């Protein structure tokens, strides 16, 4: 064996990372080679010195710094919504005017009459799906699917939809009764299938942007009602047998049985977006695509 190879073995011997055969070889060599004997001793001294290198603990605020480093990502969604802010504001104004002036001009009726009107539509055409009525707060359709970075950040494993693809849930109509006398914002409505038939015993998952998630099961006539924790923006997803992931906007994720139609995109989830400003009651008609 070449001396250079033996030197490598001497180093591994110092680390106790040799076979029995190699150990015997090294010990026999070191007994005769002063250079390798000195090298072995030097490795020992060096190792002892390196082990005594200073050790310490990081600052106590390091965890806060890590959290703050993640914080901008948590705000990503809101920053991306900013360009849409004027549109949302306009929509809010239109809704308010519709509620205030609507009944006088045959426009939007207050919450309860709206439900009754939907029911009347269904009676007149029971087999037909409710047609969209130009809901001022319809689904927000993102311009494109989630980026690879978002997929990585949020652990999104399902394939993103094609650009422009919509949720399996569609908002057919939506009315808002502002500030009605009730303890909390409330979401009520009716769910229909693609053929226009009321969907009974179907679970809808409602999520806000800070981690709250609620669920409600439709009644025999497809109706549902759910109290919401506070004013804000909510997303509605259709629960189902397929296991998918509801993504929350703070970067965490909660597993839930959802039909896989909730995706994070550059502008948010592809799901119906519902905005509540106060203790409002939102009446929606949803349809499964």
């Amino acid at each position, binding site marked *: 064996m070449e001396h250079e190879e033996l030197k490598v073995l001497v*180093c591994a011997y110092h680390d106790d990372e040799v076979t029995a055969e190699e150990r015997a070889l090294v010990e026999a060599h070191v007994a005769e080679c002063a250079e390798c004997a000195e090298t072995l001793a030097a490795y020992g001294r060096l190792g002892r*010195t390196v082990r005594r290198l200073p050790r310490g603990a990081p600052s106590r605020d390091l965890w806060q710094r890590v959290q703050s480093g993640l914080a901008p990502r948590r705000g990503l969604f809101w920053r991306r919504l900013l360009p849409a802010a004027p549109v949302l504001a306009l929509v809010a104004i239109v809704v308010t005017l519709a509620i205030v002036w609507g009944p006088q001009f045959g426009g939007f009726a207050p919450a309860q009459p709206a439900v009754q009107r939907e029911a009347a539509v269904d009676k007149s055409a029971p087999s037909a799906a409710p047609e969209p009525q130009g809901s001022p707060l319809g689904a927000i359709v993102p311009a494109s699917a989630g980026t690879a970075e978002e997929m990585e950040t949020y652990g999104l494993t399902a394939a993103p939809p094609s650009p422009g693809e919509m949720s399996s849930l569609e908002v057919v109509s939506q009315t808002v009764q502002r500030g009605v006398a009730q303890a909390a914002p409330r979401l009520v409505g009716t769910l229909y299938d693609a053929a226009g038939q009321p969907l009974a015993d179907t679970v809808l998952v409602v999520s806000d942007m800070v981690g709250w998630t609620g669920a409600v099961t439709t009644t025999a006539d497809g109706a549902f009602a759910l109290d919401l924790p506070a004013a804000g923006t909510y997303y509605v997803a259709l629960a189902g047998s397929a296991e998918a992931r509801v993504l929350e906007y703070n970067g965490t994720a909660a597993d839930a049985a959802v039909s896989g139609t909730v995706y994070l995109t550059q502008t948010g989830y592809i799901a119906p977006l519902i905005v509540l400003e106060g203790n409002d009651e939102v009446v929606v008609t949803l349809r499964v695509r």
Partner: protein
Amino acid sequence: MSEEEQRAWAEAAGKGDERAFEAIFNHYQVSLFNWARHLVGDADEAEDVVQQSFIKAFRALPQMREPGALDYWLKRIVYTTSMDHLRQRKRRAETSWDDRLGHHNLPGRGPEADALYQEQLDLVQVALQRLPERYRAYILLREFEGKSYDEISAIMGDPTTTVRVVLFRARERLREILREIAGEDYHGA
């Protein structure tokens, strides 16, 4: 932390459980900080490296292939982040490590045993910073962290046969540097 525990924490954190991620942080922060500290040669900069590393880890956890190897995976992230940091430092042409340790008169220190001990420690720190980064990482993993060749292989992504050779070359280069900066006064190399 056992492999099973590492897997459980990693999988929970990968699903977005921030408490699991905080538990991982609390468990590994000190060892990762010390690993980074001697890789980059500065405690303050090491904190920045560890901060960036945990942020990267948090974002990459859902894609982690071997949750049971969390320890090695985090060390690897700190290593690559440290290397990025050092490259940026070079570009910024910051003060050299010798300048930072300007209070050390490297050759020919006092005769007292304590002073000699401290001097040798300082010399080794300076010499480590002059080593190629990869060699430095190997020396630290083996001597400072006490990692086995198999563990070093897992962290650095090299075969164990390579670990053996690289460690030999790293030690020899470190001895050369020590002789260069300390001359015959140094008794460790």
